[in-house]
């Protein structure tokens, strides 16, 4: 019975969504406060209904209720509980429900935390959010319903795709969706601004926390996905320029641009129309990603199910929202008043450069992703656009962007002093070059490009620190005074510095791994050894083992350095019994930020075993940098200035603002 109540809750959420799409918008147009007050209440009710439905589906998974088709298709009674629960979104229907849950969660958060927004803006934003919700609710209920039943119920499920039976599934999709779907709020704000025909610096301040939150989660989600692919797929790579990865990377690039242009708009009321366009584009790219992954156009680990009717439905949603938003933009944007002017050498100028490069790189990735699809549709020719294309185009574009990054925070608004900024940065640049070449020397004889790459990475790190250093004025004031000033800097300054520093760390990781990694494919027999990264691996032999729903062959290796055994590692090949599907579980050992990666291949006829061993120096920097960026996002999000205008807090804030050292 509970299953049916969950199904009903989802249907009621649709009914609420219809009302929510119309009433508050009408209220905002007619200036009716009661109709506008419907928006927050309706949004929260809708979230509660969807959350209940999601909870019911999760329960069905937890207790293995195979009378639910979706559970039977994607679960197995013997799976560990964590995979049963994360299996809820390890399939098409469930992942769309998670998408919806997060969409309504963001609506409810705008309803609850948006009390500082003007009533009309909030009502319009929530109505636009409800349009998206209705579209996806219809999609779920009519083409991807997770509450379809089986009668009689089978006794055992079909099991979850073994590749997805991993802790990564528990965190990667929720984080990624928090990012993807978070940009829907920016989209709704942009559409609301176009409908209202009013946009100003305050708008940018109101949108910023949502952009920042979405960007932060998307950063975390992409990094998590990359690490998961790295350790689970057993190829030792961390980024494949796979269309599905690109689908998540494009909104990230556009979102990064949006984050920076909104800053210009907030401070200077410039770039208004551009910012609105970026907000629309960012969510459009999120929708495009959803379409690419969910329609079955692409085949990859992510495409759980392919069904043409779903593809057409999502394509219709895509056309309606992206097309509609652009039409609205073309119609209303000319009526918006454009804002202030500025000199090319200024912080705004630097941010425009950032936007320019980020947009071009988004377009590059988009081309590289869609071109093969378009070509195949038109001519039937299958080509693959891979790493060489992206490394050449995207990689080249990134160099000027990365060089410009530390300048942004150091230049003043309106009219900056490039020479001054240069003078401040040359210490950072010098240190970076020294460190880059030093590391190169230590690792002995890498190519010059790598040295430059490393130098750019260090330059970003030192540039971020230099920003804080000069803001606190460490060189000129005594340490104690400067330290007090450092503590007094707004949190968004730390957020900026951390995000830029994290970017530097990621660049360092990428360059170090691409340049210095070593790969050995060897055939090993019990008792034989292999060398990698200065470590010796001794193959101790294979052992059979049985897991809850799989059997595996595990190979044991003893790792030693200079003849002293320091660690041991297991690497295994699993066979999941229900689907008769094999997977590899790589053995990974971390030494500082570097890793030793051992993956098992096939048995040879003469009794040997193919073993792939990688030495991946500083690889953890790639994801560590992303974690630092994420922390930067949260620090910036906690900046109290983002909460300005909340009526209940205004008095308190004014008092706090008077204390100079805070």
């Amino acid at each position, binding site marked *: 019975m509970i299953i049916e109540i969950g199904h009903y809750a989802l249907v009621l959420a649709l009914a609420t969504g219809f009302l929510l799409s119309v009433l508050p918008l009408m209220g905002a147009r007619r200036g009716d406060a009661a109709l506008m007050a419907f928006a927050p209440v309706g949004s929260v009710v809708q979230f509660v209904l969807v959350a209940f439905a999601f909870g019911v589906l999760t329960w069905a998974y937890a207790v293995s209720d195979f009378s639910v088709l979706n559970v039977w298709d994607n679960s197995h009674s013997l799976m560990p509980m964590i995979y049963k629960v994360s299996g809820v979104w390890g399939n098409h229907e469930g992942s769309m429900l998670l998408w919806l849950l997060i969409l309504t969660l963001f609506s409810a958060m705008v309803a609850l935390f948006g009390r500082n927004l003007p009533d009309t803006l909030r009502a319009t934003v929530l109505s636009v959010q409800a349009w998206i919700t209705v579209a996806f609710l219809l999609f779920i209920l009519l083409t991807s319903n997770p509450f379809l039943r089986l009668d009689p119920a089978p006794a*055992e499920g079909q099991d979850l795709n073994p590749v997805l039976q991993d802790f990564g599934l528990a965190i990667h999709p929720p984080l990624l969706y928090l990012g993807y779907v978070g940009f829907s709020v920016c989209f709704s704000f942009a559409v609301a601004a176009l409908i209202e025909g009013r946009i100003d610096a305050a708008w940018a301040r109101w949108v910023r926390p949502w952009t920042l939150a979405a960007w932060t989660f998307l950063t975390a989600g992409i990094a998590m996905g990359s690490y998961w692919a790295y350790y689970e797929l057993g190829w030792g790579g961390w980024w494949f320029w796979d269309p599905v990865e690109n689908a998540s990377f494009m909104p990230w690039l556009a979102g990064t641009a949006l984050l920076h242009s909104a800053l210009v708009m907030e401070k200077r009321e410039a770039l208004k129309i551009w910012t609105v366009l970026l907000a629309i584009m960012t969510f459009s790219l999120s929708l495009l990603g959803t379409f690419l992954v969910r329609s079955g156009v692409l085949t990859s680990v992510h495409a759980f199910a392919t069904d043409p009717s779903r593809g057409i439905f999502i394509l219709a949603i895509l056309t309606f929202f992206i097309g509609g938003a652009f039409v609205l933009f073309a119609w209303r944007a000319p009526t918006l008043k454009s804002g202030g002017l500025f000199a090319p050498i200024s912080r705004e100028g630097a941010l425009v450069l950032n936007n320019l490069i980020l947009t071009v790189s988004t377009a590059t990735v988009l081309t590289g992703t869609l071109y093969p699809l378009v070509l195949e549709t038109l001519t039937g020719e299958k080509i693959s656009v891979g790493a060489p294309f992206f490394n050449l185009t995207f990689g080249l574009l990134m160099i000027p962007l990365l060089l410009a990054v530390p300048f942004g925070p150091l230049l003043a608004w309106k009219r900056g002093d490039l020479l001054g900024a240069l003078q401040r940065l040359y210490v950072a640049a010098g240190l970076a070059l020294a460190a880059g070449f030093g590391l190169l020397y230590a690792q002995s004889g890498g190519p010059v490009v790598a040295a430059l790459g490393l130098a750019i990475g260090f330059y970003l790190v030192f540039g971020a620190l230099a920003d804080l250093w000069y803001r606190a004025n460490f060189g000129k004031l005594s340490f104690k005074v400067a330290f007090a000033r450092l503590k007094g800097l707004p949190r968004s300054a730390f957020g900026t510095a951390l995000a830029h520093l994290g970017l530097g760390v990621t660049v360092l990781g990428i360059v170090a791994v691409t340049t210095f990694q070593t790969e050995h494919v060897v055939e090993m027999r019990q008792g034989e050894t292999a060398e990698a990264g200065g470590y010796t691996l001794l193959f101790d032999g294979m052992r059979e083992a049985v897991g809850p729903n799989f059997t595996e062959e595990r190979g044991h290796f003893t790792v030693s350095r200079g003849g002293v055994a320091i660690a041991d590692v297991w690497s295994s090949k699993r066979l999941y019994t229900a689907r008769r599907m094999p997977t590899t579980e790589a053995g990974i050992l971390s030494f500082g930020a570097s890793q030793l990666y051992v993956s098992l291949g096939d048995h040879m006829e003469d009794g040997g075993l193919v073993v792939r061993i990688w030495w991946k120096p500083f690889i953890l920097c790639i994801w560590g940098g992303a974690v630092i960026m994420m922390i930067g996002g949260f620090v910036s999000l906690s900046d109290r200035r983002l909460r300005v205008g909340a009526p209940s807090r205004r008095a308190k804030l004014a008092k706090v603002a008077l204390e100079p050292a805070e």
Partner: protein
Amino acid sequence: MTLWILLAVITAGVSAVLIWPLMTSARPVEELREDEAAVYRDQLREVDRDRAQGLIGVEEAGYAKAEIGRRLLALADKRADAKGTGGGAASRARHRLAPLSVILCVPLIGLCLYLFLGNPDLPAQPLEARLANPGNNMALLVAKAERHLAEKPDDGAGWDLLAPIYFRAMRLGDAEMAYRNAIRLNGESSERLAGLGETLVASNEGVVTEDARHAFDRAVALDGRNMRARFYAALALEQAGRTDDARRAFEAILKDSPPGAAWISLVSEHIGKNGGAPLAAAPTAPAAAQKAPGNPNAAQVEAMQQLSPQERQQMIAGMVDTLAARLRDDPDNIEGWLRLVRSYMVLGDKAKASDALKAGLKTFPADQEAGRRLLALAKETGLSAEGVTP
């Protein structure tokens, strides 16, 4: 019934909460735009703070403050403009429609769509509860036994019980594993070895492989009265082309069998096949049916009765596919083609039925007796023979 009461309560609750904000009297909104002003005032404070900390120069601070001040002034202008416009009587009339739309929309959309999509009669069925009370559901009993064995993989009796069930359900891989486990844990017995052998034969499309033959030989050695093992051992001789030995072995089975045993006709038929005289009394019709490819054997029929409709459908589809594959290799079998076309029509797959009809007519052209039978069948089942008749 309880479900409907609960759904009604939820519907009423949701409607009530949604109507609540609408029940306040319609009041025109005040366009004060206080929130926007708050943002600009805070920006002014921020400039002051930055100036106090020496983060920006005096001149820049002045410019920034002037700019923010202009925004505040512009805002004040807009505020003055906005005064005087507000909702009138018209909006109040429309306002009364809003609660009505909630009262209509929520139950109407909710119930209509749910009645279209939902399964109100189906209870939730958590696996644990079903396992605790499995009744006669074979699939559940199997699942229960599997769980027991997952915990205690060394329980030979459990494997003994499960192995023939797996075989009947045509889960041949599982059956082989179960038989091997039972033999490993409980030791060899004639029954287990014969079961293992039969599973291997079934996995190899009826061919008695070396492994299987070995199992049957051991089974016969342990118990000479194991007719099943002796039958397969004889079949191995037949497949090896040792006709005389095979005939002698089949005749020996017939001699040792009690009168009226179920397998007599089958054995008798094999005697005939290997050049002996089949037992006159043996009814021939079932034996002929046994010969036609794709006819389910006794074990399959029995297994099918144990399955759920869905699993049954799957099993039938599997058998039809096997038949299709065999006919592709050996198309000279009119009875097979007739069965295939009829099976596809029963399964509701008209496209495949039509393909099968065309393929059958290639071997048996329509101007011959066999081809006419195919066309007659097509007509009888309503399958269009367009494009296939010459």
